[in-house]
């Protein structure tokens, strides 16, 4: 009997699987759980996380076995070249959609900085807004004095950089260095496996994961600093809002990325990946590069400029 992997004249279609429908179930449970939780908090009632946790567990278990299955099939040499190409297409366009997700938040940032803040501050085409409704609001970015401080508590201070001279003592700068380095190391890991140099693969990959963790620790400290020492919070007006939603979702993606890379690392130690077949690793590194690029934009538009 023919084997699709070799015989190009035969199409390959994967077996049906029970995973997807349970992923859908898990996600739905997770989100409904989160919804209950958020609403209870807002209504000031006591609440439970049971549903969200259940959903999370279902989701994790199913995803784990799903990926496991794919990896096994791959080792069994079942998917042919065409199917592997489909994975490549899939991953690249997924990353594109992620880019657009961040684009929405960057859009919000630019809109606020260039339009709404100056209008409310009495400048530009709709300056009448400021003149008439917000006479004592001064347009400035970062906004540390809100139009109505009784509704949105003024942050004591912003996270903005004080100019290149101060960068050496400026943590976001070091975080940039960390992420950029990690992009390079993950690339070395990838070239390593391509040259059948497994030591390089394991070494560089471990380093990358460590750098990811380090970045997260620094970012965690930054948040602590912002909340506890600067009084910069989610509800300190548009500056806090854009700052935390952009860095927050980026941080969330770094967490995911680090976790994915960790999985690849474990696989590497388990002897997975061949010189000519390591898309799992490659996809993870693409994702990591993407997270890195987003951070560079963040560093400039949120911290420096």
């Amino acid at each position: 009997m023919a084997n699709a992997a070799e015989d190009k004249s035969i199409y390959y279609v994967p077996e049906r699987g029970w995973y997807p429908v349970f992923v859908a179930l898990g996600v739905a449970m997770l989100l409904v759980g989160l919804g209950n939780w958020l609403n209870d908090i807002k209504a000031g009632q006591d609440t439970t996380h049971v549903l969200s946790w259940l959903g999370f567990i279902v989701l994790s278990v199913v995803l784990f076995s799903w990926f496991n299955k794919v990896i096994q099939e791959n080792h069994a040499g079942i998917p042919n070249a065409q199917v592997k190409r489909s994975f490549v297409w899939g991953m690249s366009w997924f990353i594109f959609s992620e880019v657009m997700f961040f684009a929405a938040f960057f859009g919000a940032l630019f809109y606020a900085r260039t339009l709404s803040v100056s209008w409310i501050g009495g400048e530009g085409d709709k300056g009448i807004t400021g003149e008439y409704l917000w006479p004592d609001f001064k347009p400035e970015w970062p906004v540390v004095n809100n139009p109505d401080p009784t509704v949105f508590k003024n942050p004591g201070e912003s996270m903005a950089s004080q100019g290149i001279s101060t960068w050496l003592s400026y943590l976001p700068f070091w975080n940039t260095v960390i992420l950029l380095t990690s992009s390079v190391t993950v690339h070395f890991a990838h070239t390593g496996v391509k040259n059948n140099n497994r030591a390089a693969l394991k070494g560089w990959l471990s380093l990358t994961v460590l750098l990811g963790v380090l970045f997260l620790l620094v970012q965690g400290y930054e948040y602590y600093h912002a909340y506890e020492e600067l009084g910069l919070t989610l509800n300190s007006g548009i500056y806090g809002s854009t700052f935390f939603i952009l860095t927050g979702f980026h941080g969330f993606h770094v967490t995911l990325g680090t976790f994915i890379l960790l999985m690849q690392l474990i696989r590497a130690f388990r002897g997975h990946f061949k010189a000519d077949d390591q898309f799992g690793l490659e996809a993870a590194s693409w994702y990591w590069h993407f997270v890195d690029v987003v951070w560079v934009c963040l560093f400039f538009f949120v911290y420096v400029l």
Partner: protein
Amino acid sequence: MARKRCGHVPRTLVTFHGDAVAPQTSTVAPYGFDTADCEAKENVNGKFLTRVIGGAALTTAGLASVADELNMPVGVTQISASVYDLHMLILYICCVIGVVVFGAMGYSMYAHRKSVGAKAAQFHENTRLEIVWTIVPSIILIAMAVPATRVLVDMYDTGDEDMTVEVRGYQWKWQYKYLDDNLGSTLSFFSALATPQDEIHNRSVKGEHYLLEVDNPLVVPLGKKVKLLVTANDVLHAWWVPDFGIKRDAIPGIVNDIWFIADKAGIYRGQCTELCGKDHGFMPIVVRVLPQDEYDAWYSAQSTAFAEREAMASQTFAADELMAMGEQVYNKTCATCHQANGQGIPPVFPAIAGSAIATGPRDAHISIVYAGKPGTAMQAFGTQLNAAELAAVIHYQRHAFGNSTDDVTQPVDILNWSAAQ
């Protein structure tokens, strides 16, 4: 094209029988020249067929002004008139294109049927043709864009206005503030739906201005450039008077400025045109355009009345006075949400009857009425009602619907409370 504003002439002058506008001044009638009104009339004795035929005619590039209710009103401002012309221009162009396109299609469907033995040609390209039908539409579009741009630029020609009024949208009423040169408020009042609930719930026959009548209309002088600063207090609303050809969103925390010059005295009606919650359909706009002298008379009368109402703050009232006054204020201000019977629409609009606040300590009650409850539909009425009205309505709420607290709330209590804040 014809600029007749109403389907049928000669028309009788409108007199406002019990129309809530009447209280404003006695000399309304001679200028009561109004679209909604003649439409309503036509409607009551429903000339339906004529209308549908008119409709067909209109769309097949027929007569434009068959009847107002078929088409955009020409209106009473330069702008609205030129918008109307623009509208008709595009409409005609589209109709012509439609006739050509559908004509060709119809002919082909008729002539090239298999049933009449049509043999299929096999051509599937014709570059020259395709270029033509890319160029021609482009030219047509330019022909539309030029006048459109001109009108738009005219609309944006703000400045050198004769007077300025702030228009502020609330759930679900409008506030008009007459402003002096440095934007200080000289006169301010609310303008809410005047149609009785019975008409809305089909318990009584609907008047001819059903849903298009308010207690206090905006009043402006004839032929003067009136600038409006449009904003909102809670959610988005939009201020629209078709006969002026202007519509602007009212946005909380943001100001939009628009202007109009009404060339004809009369009463013009519009509606809120941005979904703003439960009673979005029930916050009409009425503007009365008066000749300058009558406007001045109205204005001074208003400002004195305004001053008097403010003065009431220093008086003390008997309990039954408070109840009477309070009931009026309640039905005008609170009843849309908390309902006339005080039962509310839980959970969104809590009941007043037996509520913890309306039967509990009074300062809490004053506080929520005066300062509102942020993040809910409960507004800060301290900025909307004067001390006397607040005192009356609070007293009423604490003694109506079976609530019976043993306190009497006077304007001074309100003033003390707000002073204490």
